[in-house]
């Protein structure tokens, strides 16, 4: 992983997450804005997948367990599309909250990925 890109992703995930949770609690059904946050996060994660494949070839290897890293990355990548699909099917305020919770979960997963990639565990 590349530190600045990780930071960008986490910032987007947290902002999109807080925005959607706030909008949901303010009784708004899912909107273009809240879903765009999750969609942007999905695109960033897709790029992260490409980077995680390429990085080891350039000598930037994960220091922790690579399988664990990939388990997190794939899980995180699945979340935004599922949340958006959910929001499209169920047009209630709580779907907006669900989108936000998913984004915040991705933020936590990104932090875990960062730790696995950079911190020597074993």
């Amino acid at each position, binding site marked *: 992983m590349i530190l600045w890109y990780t930071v960008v992703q986490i910032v987007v995930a947290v902002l999109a997450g807080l925005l959607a949770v706030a909008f949901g609690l303010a009784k708004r059904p899912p909107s273009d804005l809240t879903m765009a946050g999750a969609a942007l996060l999905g695109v960033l994660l897709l790029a992260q997948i490409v980077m995680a494949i390429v990085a080891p070839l350039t000598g930037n290897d994960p220091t922790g*367990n690579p*399988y664990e890293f990939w*388990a997190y990355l794939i*899980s995180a990548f*699945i*979340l935004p599309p599922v949340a958006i699909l959910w929001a499209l099917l169920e047009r*209630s305020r*709580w*779907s907006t909250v669900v989108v936000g*919770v998913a984004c915040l979960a991705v933020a936590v997963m990104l932090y875990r990925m960062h730790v696995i990639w950079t911190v020597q565990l074993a």
Partner: protein
Amino acid sequence: MTATSPASTSRRRRISGIGLVLVAVYGILALAATGRSTVQILSDYSEAPLAYSLSALAAVVYILATVALVAPGRGWYRVAWITIGFELLFVLTVGTLSIVDAELFPRDTVWSYYGGGYLFVPLVVPVLGMLWLARHRPGTVRDAS
């Protein structure tokens, strides 16, 4: 597709409103636990068989609980109570054991330190789940079961 008005579709399912957020949290937890246990068991099971078996058990219980929350009928309602009660019991037991007897769990599970590795979500969510179940008995929702 005609006859399904929004009212009738929402009546068919047990869960709606804020309960959906609970389901989403359970789904995410199930995903995280499954990913973690798969990796742990595939890469070094022999290092901490008890901890890793517990991780796998956690994954199964969270998946079951997620399904039980969504699925209609009294049977699933009971399964939801059992799985969620089981989670609370285990997060408290394993959480305590992981502090008292750290040797027992050389590697962390979802439930270690009361779910501290998962922002204590595994500790909070069963309580919310039970509150939700207690307030939404199958009888009070007019479904077909």
